[in-house]
């Protein structure tokens, strides 16, 4: 991003070996001969924390996925009589296509997606509000943090029976479970993000005439924004975990419900297809949140 000449140039690895025009030759003068090399030459790919070209990066990533699929296929074909327990990738894919064609996949996806969107959305809003308060005011931290620290050790899944009792078997208990299973982590992690705002930045804002509310809204929040996205990205996995717990217990629709149903009919290939859908959703949402961070906070370290 350097636009100004004073900025540090991109680090360039300097090869500390003699350049080729100094190769030892019999005919050249003694002073110009190379007697050896100094320093250890490193393979580009194996240099500790060294950069690799983008093409190599993508190639290695693709290779990794292929190795995973290949291992799976190899294992599945070697199962013999037990082969119904582990479908091949092709069988899982076919089962997934069937599920899609029947319309069930999209219905389940939208049911589960809706629960996550509402539940995790509520969790993020509460997490940001309380987290920023805790991170900004010592008094809020003193009051709220012990409560949160205590409550988060109650396993959210253990609350499922209680929520079913209180909220019935509709959407409410499922959404509540997602909120409770993630909100405490969101609060504590956002609080850490807000605490990491440099004190000097707050002081500078004060000396520019900003009041506390202005600083909260116009300094602390924007500075914390990329960190908040990171927190949301990390804890999204926990939201899906709670969704699965909720759908396993009582649901007529949803991805995890579909997994249980497939298990009842011994449709292992369908189960695998659904597991891959879970993985794909995770990957896509992760990439989407990274992209959001890069787009909305290009100034932040870690955004590229």
């Amino acid at each position, binding site marked *: 991003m350097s636009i100004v000449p*004073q900025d540090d140039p991109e680090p360039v690895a300097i090869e500390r070996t003699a350049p080729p025009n100094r190769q030892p030759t019999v005919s050249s003068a003694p002073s110009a001969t190379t007697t050896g090399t100094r320093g250890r030459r490193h393979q580009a790919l194996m240099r500790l924390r060294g950069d690799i070209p983008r093409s190599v990066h993508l190639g290695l990533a693709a290779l990794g996925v292929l190795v995973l699929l290949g291992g799976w296929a190899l294992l599945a074909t070697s199962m013999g009589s037990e082969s119904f327990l582990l479908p091949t990738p092709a069988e899982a894919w076919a089962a997934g296509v069937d599920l899609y064609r029947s319309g069930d996949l999209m219905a389940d996806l939208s049911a589960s997606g809706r629960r996550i969107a509402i539940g995790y959305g509520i969790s993020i809003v509460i997490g940001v509000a309380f987290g920023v308060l805790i991170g900004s005011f010592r008094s809020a931290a003193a009051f709220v943090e012990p409560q949160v620290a205590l409550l988060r050790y109650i396993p959210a899944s253990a609350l499922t029976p209680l929520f079913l009792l209180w909220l019935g078997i509709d959407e409410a208990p499922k959404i509540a479970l997602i909120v409770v299973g993630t909100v405490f982590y969101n609060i504590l992690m956002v609080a850490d993000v807000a605490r990491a705002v440099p004190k000097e930045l707050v002081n500078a804002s004060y000396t520019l005439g900003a009041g506390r509310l202005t600083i909260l809204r116009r300094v602390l929040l924007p500075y914390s924004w990329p960190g908040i996205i990171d927190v949301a990205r990390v804890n999204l996995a926990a939201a899906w975990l709670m969704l699965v717990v909720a759908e396993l217990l009582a649901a007529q629709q949803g991805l995890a419900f579909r997994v249980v149903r497939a298990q009842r009919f011994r449709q292992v290939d369908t189960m695998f297809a659904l597991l891959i859908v879970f993985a794909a959703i995770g990957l896509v949402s992760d990439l989407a949140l990274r992209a959001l961070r890069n787009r909305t906070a290009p100034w932040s370290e870690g955004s590229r």
Partner: protein
Amino acid sequence: MTGVIVEAVTKSFRAGRGVDPLVALDGVDMHIDAGELVSIVGVSGCGKTTLLNIVGGLETATAGQIRIDGDLIVGPGPDRGMVFQGYSLFPWKSVTQNIAFGLECARWPKARRQGRIDELLGVTGLTEFAGHRPDQLSGGMRQRVAIARALAPEPDVLLLDEPFGSLDAQTKRVMQDFLLSVQARTSATILLVTHDVSEAIYLSQRVYVMASRPGRVLEEIAVPFGSVRGPAVLRDARFLDLREEIEELLHAPSPLASSSSEQAIPAQAAPPLPPPVPL
């Protein structure tokens, strides 16, 4: 006429149970007249930054008071612009938006705001970089943005805390002349904290020399050069004498502190040399 008056300011920190409180500042008296550029020099730990923060309203004095134009300082405000060593710019805001922040807080009307920003961009030579973010600027430029931002709401006093401490020697020189030009054009009242004796003499009309343990004013020294400064000043015999005098004051063993742990801090460590490239 505005001026800053520091009256018997004392600041102590509780060091722990059963331990005597740490006295960071002990009865400091100072005055900075309107339009004056005054420096505070002292070794690390003499409380000079604490004093500046108290003037800025970011810390409170244990005893004593600070008045500006007769008003008692009780907290931070836009009448005292501050510039910190670490720039502390808003990293997500452009240069223009950074400078605009104080004006928005003071509810300047939009048209007047833009005029003020343009003026400051011109003064600081940043017009071309108005739309850049701080991470796209060099250290010297960032500090110029910080100074422009602090000057924007037209403060009575500009407080600078080691503003050029993290810049390389060449950039530092340029920035010092820049500060002088800003003062000449805006006739701002400036209080500068630095550990660089040459910088203090080169820039100031007066220098307060502080000692540590407890932090106190050792000497108030008037700098004999007029408002026109330049390379000639640096070679002036009086400049060299003054520098020697202040260095001696700073490094003389303190009668109150055990001298062993108090070492002069070198102005700036030399940056590591780049690795040699074979020819």
